């Protein structure tokens, strides 16, 4: 009955104080930018919203909308099937991933100052070991979330941060990703930027290491997260469940974190 007591305590803490719910999601809106691929590739559809009716001749008593968007729009979840390295894994899609993957503890690595200095900042395995020196070892099946404060860039141009050589946003390097997968057995990696990989990751070896290695090992991704600055380095629990899309590669999520007050 230990579980029942824990849940009862949690419910009490949520209602009466002690545990707070932090919203880690950006608002889904046409204004929020979507990922940009080179134009010869097909593109992720941006979030769009068309009114069906609004208490008018199209429907007198009700307001509702039709939505269209790609799976990788807004604050979203990447399933292993998203990448070619994860395509043949069992239970690799939004409908088959175990539901337990959607609730997990989080380790938050604060890279805000480094990212402010250098938009191409790369999180390395050394950074992660140094973080562990301060906050303890990253537990298995945890989310590792990279705080860059990128979500505070409300201007879409600054958020995307393109120049003629492409996008400049922070992310992990290949060794950091391998360390997290091979030595720490993480559930996945999450960022505030538009991808789990750095903006320039097309030029890394391997290209897009976070997608390549994480998804190849059956791990997940979260991106376009917000409010990571409100999370402690350890001790929070993230709830991020993708829509149960048949063989979906990802989904927008309402990502939440439970935080001790």
């Amino acid at each position: 009955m230990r579980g029942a007591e824990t849940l009862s305590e949690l419910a009490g803490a949520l209602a009466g104080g002690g545990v707070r719910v932090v919203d880690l999601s950006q608002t889904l809106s046409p204004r929020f930018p979507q990922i940009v691929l080179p134009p010869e590739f097909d593109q992720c559809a941006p979030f769009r919203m068309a009114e069906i009716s609004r208490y008018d001749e199209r429907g007198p008593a009700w307001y509702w909308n039709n939505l269209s968007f790609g799976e990788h729009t807004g604050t979203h979840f990447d399933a292993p099937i998203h990448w070619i390295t994860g395509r043949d894994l069992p239970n690799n899609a939004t409908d088959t991933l175990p539901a337990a993957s959607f609730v997990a503890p989080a380790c938050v690595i604060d890279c805000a100052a480094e990212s402010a200095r250098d938009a191409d900042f790369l999180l390395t395995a050394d950074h992660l070991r140094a973080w562990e020196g301060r906050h303890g070892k990253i537990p298995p099946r945890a989310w590792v979330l990279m705080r860059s404060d990128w979500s505070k860039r409300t201007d879409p141009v600054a958020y995307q941060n393109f120049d003629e050589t492409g996008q400049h946003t922070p992310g992990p390097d290949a060794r950091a990703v391998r360390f997290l997968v091979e030595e720490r057995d993480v559930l996945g990696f999450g960022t505030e930027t538009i991808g789990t990989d750095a903006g320039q990751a097309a030029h890394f070896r391997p290209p897009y290491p976070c997608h390549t290695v994480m998804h190849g090992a059956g791990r997940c991704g979260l991106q376009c997260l917000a409010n990571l600055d409100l999370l402690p380095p350890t001790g929070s629990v993230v709830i991020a469940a993708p829509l149960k899309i048949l063989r979906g590669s990802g989904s927008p999520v309402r990502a939440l974190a439970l935080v001790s007050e």
Partner: protein
Amino acid sequence: MTPPLIKPKPRNPVRALRRPTLPPPARSRAALRLTAAAAEGRFELQHCCDCGTVQYPPRSACVTCLSTHLEWRETDGVGELIADTVLHHSNELYYRERVPLRLGMVRLAAGPSLLAHVHGDCGSAPTPVRLRAHLDKSGQAVLMALPSQDTTNMADDPMLREMTSDPKFRKVLVTDGKSAVGQAIARAMIDAGAEIVWAGVAEPWKQAGGLDALAKLPQIEQVTLDVTDEKSVRDLAGVIGGKVDILINTAEFHRAHGVADRGTETAHAEMEMNYLGLLRLAQAFGPAMQARAAEGSVPATAWVNLLSIYALSALPSHGTFSASKAAAFALSQNLRAEMRHAGIRVVNVFPGPIDDEWNQLLPPPKLAPAALAGAIVKALREGVEDVYPGDVAQDIVRRFRESAKVLERELWDQ
């Protein structure tokens, strides 16, 4: 001599808006051929293939020999104003608002005598004139006698302005100011005297060459506009919808794919922008433009659609693009039918391949953006509603009219 058009003062906000009225729109089926030619800037009359008589008004048979073998041919408008008068009263609302009106009888060198509007710079009869057919506010052809030589402010004659859409002093929205075509059109509008050119910018995080230089021009105002986003279109219409005099829809999504070599996402994106984008603009900007179609001396006047000559007959190597432009063409015809109630001219532009990155593999000649922009300015000034700019467009429209089927086959391997 016609006085020059002066820059209009801002509208007096307590005065009621003048509602648009129209000249009589009814035409016989035969007379609509005069309209069809005028829509492309040509003056055509019926020629009898048996006896050579050139006749007006249009009829089913020749007035001289009763032959029904009549052909519409481009006709020289050179003639003489043989009588003229000034109309001071009319029970037609449209004319009532515009009297006094100069009218006259013109005898063409080609034969017939015709009743026409007379430009203010024409001398009193008898005097040599040039006759042209123009679309009036109803979208139907009427005849207008112009002085035999151009005069200084000829374009500013009030009745001629009823039939044309000169950009001078007008406020223009170019829906995509990021493309080379959009930028060339924005510059051409400024050169033609436009007061403001709003340049739409979608997805601002994707850099566009030339935009910064364009934005330095004092007439340019960049505005956020993504025609694939209903909210974006409505938001902009809420701010400037009541000011746009000429809307030029240059927003275009173009990839060079056939039907079978790709999924549906590119086709979807093309339809979202090229077809549904036009629909969203029409719903958001159409009503206010129509309401302002008779406001002051420089009213809302024209809506320009950048289509493609392959809207008429598909280019299979750009198959889904052609299909989206065909859909936009059909929509533009409906838009024209609706806008006619206010006298807003819907101008359709059918270019051949434009010299841009998505036509890399098509052989020249390709249309330079500046040439396309020049053709649009010319169409607005001349009051033309269908424009086929450049050699390829001219060639294809000619072949389309000769035999749509032959053209269909010939486009297969291009």
